């Protein structure tokens, strides 16, 4: 084993003396991956009790999910809420990030902090606060109310992601475009936007997932025919371990992995 005695870093430590670190790191990575990976095969079990590996395979729990009107309605609500949140948060967040960067005023730092506070404020506070206000104006259980509340959580993510992309962007390029006759908006759309496109799309995906995964606000302000998927899952979890949830979870894992893979592939295309 020649490799074992080779130097592993700038200090002369050998790979052999580092083996414990490698083993530990692999164990932690398994800890991170295992739960999501193991739930997937379990969802194909025939049994009422979740087993791994399943003794008998079946699509029973998927049938149950896809043929249940209640679960389908909740899925549709979640998809709608996620999509609308993306449509609200992405332009608002991108505009704000661009404004902060281009204005280069001292107030920009303070405004940035205000824009990201929703990350820090415990969600339960936003949830009951919004519930209280919505109850007064009759917006509880409406899709628009849910989307507005979710947008608050998504905007900070878009602002942070787009801001960090703008940091490496030279505004003089816009000046050039404008001196050649483009107006302000055209300069942004044709010169700046294509260069920060990747971050805007990442921000949009995060907005969608933020809304799609959100439980606490949905618990308070969504209900009846506008109850979200995660709200129903959470309520089902408190009662018993229903294998249908394993199948829903698998669908959700596949969807979010596909989104992650898509952004990674796109990211490969951009300059590193």
């Amino acid at each position: 084993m020649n490799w074992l005695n080779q130097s592993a870093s700038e200090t002369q430590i050998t790979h052999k003396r580092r083996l414990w670190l490698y083993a530990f790191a692999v164990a932690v990575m398994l800890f991170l991956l295992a739960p999501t990976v193991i739930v997937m095969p379990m969802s194909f079990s025939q049994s009422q009790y979740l087993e791994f590996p399943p003794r008998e395979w079946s699509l029973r729990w998927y049938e149950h999910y896809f043929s249940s009107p209640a679960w389908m309605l909740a899925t549709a609500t979640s998809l709608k809420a996620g999509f609308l949140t993306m449509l609200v948060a992405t332009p608002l967040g991108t505009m704000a990030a661009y404004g902060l960067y281009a204005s280069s005023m001292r107030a920009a730092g303070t405004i940035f902090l205000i824009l990201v506070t929703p990350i820090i404020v415990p969600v339960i506070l936003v949830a009951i606060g919004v519930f209280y206000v919505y109850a007064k104006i009759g917006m509880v259980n409406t899709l628009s109310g849910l989307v507005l509340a979710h947008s608050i959580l998504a905007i900070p993510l878009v602002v942070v992601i787009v801001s960090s992309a703008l940091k490496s962007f030279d505004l003089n390029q816009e000046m050039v475009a404008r001196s050649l006759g483009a107006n302000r908006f055209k300069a942004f759309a044709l010169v700046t936007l294509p260069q920060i496109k990747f971050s805007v799309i990442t921000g949009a995906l995060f907005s969608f997932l933020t809304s799609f995964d959100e439980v606490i606000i949905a618990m308070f302000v969504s209900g009846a025919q506008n109850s979200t998927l995660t709200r129903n899952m959470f309520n089902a979890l408190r009662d018993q371990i229903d294998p249908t949830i394993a199948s829903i979870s698998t669908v959700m894992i596949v969807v979010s992995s596909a989104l992650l893979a898509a952004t990674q592939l796109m990211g490969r295309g951009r300059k590193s």
Partner: protein
Amino acid sequence: MSAAAKPHARELKSDARRERLALLGLCSPALALILVIMVIPVGWLFWLSFIGESGDFSLENYARMIDNKSYFRIFRTTFEVSVLTTAICVLIGYPLAYFLAHLPQRMANLCMIAVLLPFWTSLLVRTYAWLVLLQRKGLVNDWAIGLGLWDEPLKLVHNLSGTLIGMVHIMLPFLVLPVYGSMRAIDRDYVKAAANLGATPTQAFWQVFAPLSLPGVLAGSLIVFVLCLGFFVTPAVLGGGKVVMVSMQIANNIELFFNWGAASALGVVLLAATFAVLYAASRIVKFDQIIGGGHGGS
């Protein structure tokens, strides 16, 4: 000439100022939304927390928190769970980040999937997965008994240990990403120089590498700790009612007792505690490091 140039310059300056203000105005829709949906409702809760049962101004909601032992216990649980989760995350996340930072970039990106995939997977799905794995007849008990680690099925879920396992799993990426980012930014020539000057690998690590990676660790643990303070879903599902965090008590006060005053007062204290932690930390770490650090690795 020069007399005409001066007002011209002033006009240009005020023009530039107006334009910068207009650009700053691009923030206003986002700010307005945050004001209406977050600041006003939370401000309303602040107001409600000072209204007693009689409908007049009173401090009874806060007095209850001091008099009632159970409230004290809830705050202590929240604090303990947050500290433990943060500590475990640092203990297992730091070596992982170190390992990743020393891999060739290509390999590191591949291994990063292990950190990013959970980050992208629904929090509820991951909590559910742990519920399934840790139950009495779950996989962890089965395998541990099969391997002879313990003889009888242990009660791993619906208690503190289940809550901690789930929370560490959810919080770990928030720690690993900034730590990894700060480690990648370290100039390895420093370590080389230390080795060259006769430091053993251990000395080089503790005296050179570790201090340089400290800002990342501080930023990561701060974000983990603050997010833990307001945690709800994971302790509610994996704690089985035995681990009651402040945010769960707030929800209970509304859902079960319709007691807005009590819930609001708890919320105000939780928010104040969160801001106090952030303020204390901002004296040590720079804010843009904390916020920017979360996506340093992606």
